[in-house]
């Protein structure tokens, strides 16, 4: 008898068969199938197994994907256009990019357990503020193209939506212009031309333009400022190390891609975009912003600031729908800047510039005209009909140039370019490298006085850099240390075998605009993924382009909008959204030019069907869409989902299915079968892409065939209306999902869903005697997550949901989702990956917290001095000389006793003061001179 090898599904799924049996006994059901049939309405159940390839082992799946990706042709890229070759410093590759302490962390909403990545993101903001000269920089947008669109959004809000034109100074990259036009069109905004008048909201200055040229835009900038239009610089951050900061040139906003700061091209993404604004625009800025505040002991601590700008609070009035950002990639870019320091960055920039400069001189000497007098890294040559032939000749030498049209070809250098490249490229034009010309960058040189902050100077030896990254990682609680039971976030395992392909050169080093024949491997992988995701969701077509869930929502709504317009029903602009929806839903609808009508929920958490019928009826003529989440954001499978879809269709509307909770459906039910027309999937939730500490994410959409013509296209693929800069969005992380599905197979995926439901019901059953379950579905069962009504402790003991969340830190846990979708409550989602032992540890912590609160309620501990309101406890407090609290040091720091010694996590700060942080915003580190000035 030989033992069968352990399948991957058993590695991915935490509880063993015996564990599941024990959990079922606690829940009080005889079998998994009994529980599922109690929880999931029969009417939506999928009868057939998913038609997916049989599960492959880790080794086989890696070999298969490796062979597939070997079909990519990775030549040296000189294409540029916003994507550049990089050398990822190995110390960053190994200690950050490939380190689960960094990539498995969640968005740092719980500040006290996120100080490491918050500090790094704060450094990112400092870096951007220094490069742009603008005081307020956010902690990353999704890519250059969407960042420019967001900058336009700032300008529109600044003008209270009264101005309707955007002017251009210099030509942006084609994909940027396309995304900006896609986003502008539903809002009635015209993006064109150079004319600036009183109706111009923003002037977009391409710095440099898509041909690599710095134009003379002084007059346009002055005109814009005179008319009140905001001046937006789209600026290459590496070039900014050599030139004047955009703020000095009149910029109100600066945006650009941070990819070339040590993040691989990855066939288009993911990488971070930066966005910085002047002070007066702070509250109009989209996305996450890290601010500095203090903890209860007065120590500095970081937190996410001014969240009221964002969709999860302001909904359809938010500054943007952006939620997931690009935290991991922003942190990589920051680490790159820290590793090289200001003089190292300038040395890289000068070398890149010198290569371009000498090519331009050489071409001119050989009689080849080049565009512009000022450039950074890119030379565009005029070659009269020979662009194709030169590019073909270059390809034979292993190099890719960018054919702009038959008469123009451009060459972009980067830090990986060599002297040999310069000579070989010059030779293609019958030229030799010339001598560098002086004054080939615009304006005054920047000089040495930037990035003077100590962090950019102290970590240039590898020993120090390695320890710096470790110190920061150690401050944070990520999945490599403990369960992160965040409801609606699906913090499941990101298996190493899934992650490994992201680092392969065949995956990492391909330019997104390389000839299509060079990305055969990528296209085959994407083809598999589209087919598999279509099968899993029951749709006819899938677009992988949206690079976050919010972008998927937006792309889906645009498809619905285009469909109505194509049928002559462009007046259909009303979007029904239940009050329990994620904030991104109303924010996305507003961006798609729709007006949001909120549908009530009943007291038991379901959509109020009477109100739904009434609103659908009232808006029947103008009904564009319903957006709904299933299972609901309240964590139950509502009855009547099919009827709901039918009702919307009867009124001529389309059904948008928010796939945030897809982890409760895979293998059991399919959105397409239920009646949805479009659905987005969060690959960073259900399909194992790690959260990266707040991004990357991927939010593909599936559609039924009638919406297929309206999926996002791309200018490099012969179409348009893109929602992201690259045709396949964040392409390099798609292999994570490919590996997951390939290794799980249909049976493994279904088992994962079932286990997630078992685990959630187990946690709910164990905790129900201590915390009322706010909502339950049929047969009193829940889906894959549950809402604990922690408001009971507020009433009995004055203990708030914040106190419970912070006390969980002392027990070594990240808190569940707080106050969403119901204020004052906790939403728990265990996922299938957490072993029963960890679920039990969590349940015991919650039960212990309930008894701690009971002591407060009984008066054993005062309301204002107990381990809950004082949580979390740092080592410094627990070891302090004098101990004045009515509970012991052990109760403070080791509340679960000896059992949790191995799981002990020490927060680096005590509770952070949110109010002080928002009242007095500090969002970048001041230059060293200001410290010195203050000390004098």
């Amino acid at each position: 008898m030989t033992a069968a090898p352990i399948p991957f599904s058993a590695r991915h799924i935490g509880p063993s068969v015996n564990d599941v049996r024990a959990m079922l006994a606690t829940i009080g059901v005889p079998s998994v199938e009994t529980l599922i049939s109690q929880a999931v309405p029969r009417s939506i159940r999928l009868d057939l197994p998913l038609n997916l390839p049989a599960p492959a082992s880790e080794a086989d799946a890696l070999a298969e994907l490796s062979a597939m990706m070997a079909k990519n042709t990775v030549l040296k890229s000189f294409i540029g256009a916003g994507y550049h070759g990089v050398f990822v410093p190995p110390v960053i590759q190994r200690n950050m990019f490939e380190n689960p302490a960094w990539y498995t962390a969640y968005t740092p909403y719980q500040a006290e357990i996120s100080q490491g990545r918050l500090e790094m993101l704060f450094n990112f903001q400092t870096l951007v503020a220094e490069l742009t000269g603008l005081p307020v920089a956010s902690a990353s947008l999704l890519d250059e193209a969407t960042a420019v669109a967001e900058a336009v959004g700032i300008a529109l809000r600044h003008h209270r939506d009264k101005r309707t034109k955007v002017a251009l100074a210099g030509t942006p990259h084609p994909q940027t212009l396309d995304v900006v036009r896609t986003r502008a069109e539903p809002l009635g905004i015209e993006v064109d031309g150079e004319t600036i008048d009183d109706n111009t909201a923003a002037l977009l200055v391409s710095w440099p333009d898509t041909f690599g040229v710095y134009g003379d835009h002084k007059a346009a900038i002055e005109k814009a400022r005179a008319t009140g239009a905001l001046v937006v610089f789209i600026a290459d951050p590496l070039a900014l190390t050599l030139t004047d900061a955009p703020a000095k040139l009149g910029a109100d906003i600066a945006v650009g891609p941070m990819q070339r700061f040590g993040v691989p091209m990855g066939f288009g993404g993911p990488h971070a975009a930066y966005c910085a604004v002047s002070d007066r625009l702070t509250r109009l800025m989209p996305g996450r912003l890290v601010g500095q505040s203090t903890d209860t002991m007065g120590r500095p601590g970081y937190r996410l600031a001014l969240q009221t700008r964002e969709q999860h609070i302001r909904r359809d009035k938010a500054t943007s729908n952006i939620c997931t950002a690009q935290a991991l990639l922003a942190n990589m870019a920051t680490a790159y800047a820290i590793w090289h320091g200001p003089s190292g960055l300038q040395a890289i920039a000068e070398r890149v510039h010198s290569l371009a400069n000498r090519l331009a001189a050489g071409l001119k000497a050989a009689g080849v005209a080049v565009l512009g007098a000022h450039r950074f890294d890119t030379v565009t040559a005029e070659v009269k009909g020979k662009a194709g032939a030169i590019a073909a000749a270059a390809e034979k030498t292993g190099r890719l140039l960018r054919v702009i049209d038959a008469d123009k070809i451009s060459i972009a250098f980067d830090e990986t370019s060599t002297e040999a490249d310069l000579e070989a490229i010059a030779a293609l034009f019958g030229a030799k490298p010339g001598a560098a010309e002086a004054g080939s960058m615009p304006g005054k040189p920047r000089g040495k006085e930037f990035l003077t902050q100590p962090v950019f100077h102290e970590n240039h030896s590898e020993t120090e850099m390695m320890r710096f990254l470790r110190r920061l990682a150690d401050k944070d609680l990520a999945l490599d240390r403990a369960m992160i039971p965040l409801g609606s976030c699906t913090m499941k395992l990101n298996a190493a075998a899934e992650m490994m392909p992201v680092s392969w050169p065949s995956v990492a080093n391909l330019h997104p605009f390389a000839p299509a024949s060079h990305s055969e491997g990528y296209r085959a992988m994407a083809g598999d993924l589209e087919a598999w995701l279509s099968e899993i969701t029951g749709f006819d077509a899938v677009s992988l382009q949206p690079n976050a869930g919010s972008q998927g929502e937006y792309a889906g709504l645009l498809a619905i909008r285009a469909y109505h317009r194509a049928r002559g029903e462009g007046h259909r602009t009303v979007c029904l959204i239940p009050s329990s929806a994620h904030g991104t839903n109303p924010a996305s609808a507003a961006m798609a030019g729709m007006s949001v009508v909120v549908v009530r929920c009943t007291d038991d958490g379901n959509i109020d069907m009477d109100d739904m019928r009434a609103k659908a009826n009232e808006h029947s003529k103008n009904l564009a869409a319903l957006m709904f989440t299933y299972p609901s954001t309240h964590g139950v499978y509502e009855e009547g989902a099919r009827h709901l879809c039918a009702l919307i269709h009867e009124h001529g509307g389309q059904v948008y299915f928010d796939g945030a909770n897809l982890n409760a459906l895979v293998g059991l039910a399919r959105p397409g079968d239920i009646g949805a027309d479009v659905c987005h999937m969060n690959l960073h939730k259900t399909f194992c892409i790690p959260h990266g500490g707040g991004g990357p994410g991927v939010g593909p959409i599936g559609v039924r065939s009638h919406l297929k013509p309206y999926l996002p296209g791309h200018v490099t693929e012969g179409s348009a209306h893109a929602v992201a800069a690259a045709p396949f969005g964040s392409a390099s992380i798609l292999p994570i999902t490919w590996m997951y599905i390939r290794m799980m197979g249909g049976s493994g995926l279904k088992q994962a869903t079932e286990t997630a439901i078992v685990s959630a019901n187990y946690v709910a059953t164990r905790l129900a005697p201590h915390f009322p379950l706010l909502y339950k579905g049929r047969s009193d069962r829940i889906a894959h997550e549950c809402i604990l009504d922690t408001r009971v402790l507020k009433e009995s003991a004055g203990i708030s949901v914040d106190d419970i969340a912070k006390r969980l830190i002392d027990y070594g846990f990240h808190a569940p989702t707080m106050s969403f979708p119901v204020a004052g409550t906790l939403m728990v989602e265990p996922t299938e990956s957490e072993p029963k032992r960890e679920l039990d540890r969590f349940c015991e912590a919650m039960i212990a917290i309930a008894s701690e609160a009971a002591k407060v309620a009984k008066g054993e501990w005062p309301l204002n001095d107990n381990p809950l309101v004082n949580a979390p406890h740092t080592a410094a407090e627990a070891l302090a000389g004098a101990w004045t609290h009515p509970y012991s040091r052990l109760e403070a720091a080791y509340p679960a006793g000896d059992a949790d010694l191995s799981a002990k996590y020490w927060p680096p700060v005590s509770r952070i003061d949110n109010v002080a942080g928002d009242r007095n915003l500090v969002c970048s580190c001041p230059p060293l001179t200001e410290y010195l000035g203050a000390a004098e």
Partner: protein
Amino acid sequence: MANTYFTEDHEWLRIEGGVATVGITDYAQEQLGDLVFVELPEIGRKLAKGDTAVVVESVKAASDVYAPVDGEITEANTSLSSDPSLVNSAATGDGWLWKMKLSNASQLDSLMDEAAYKAHIG
């Protein structure tokens, strides 16, 4: 407090010589928690009853404050720019939000007096 009126949306108005001073009630500031920012209105802006006049922000919430009656903004409480906590410490005093010239005084009749408001918040 005979010339003070209240709305269901937890605003108060004090009328002096055809001009209303408007703020949010103590109950409202308590619900919102510590305010961190008040977005003040432009002087001279004409508002219809129900228009958003001001946005008040706490760490976790942003709330629109509506014009309780028609009128024109004559003054905004600029001391809130540097100290929004005045709304918390003195909601019905120094924490007032804006003043507006009434254009239709009869609208006051539909608002509540203090006793009715107290009953409203229970």
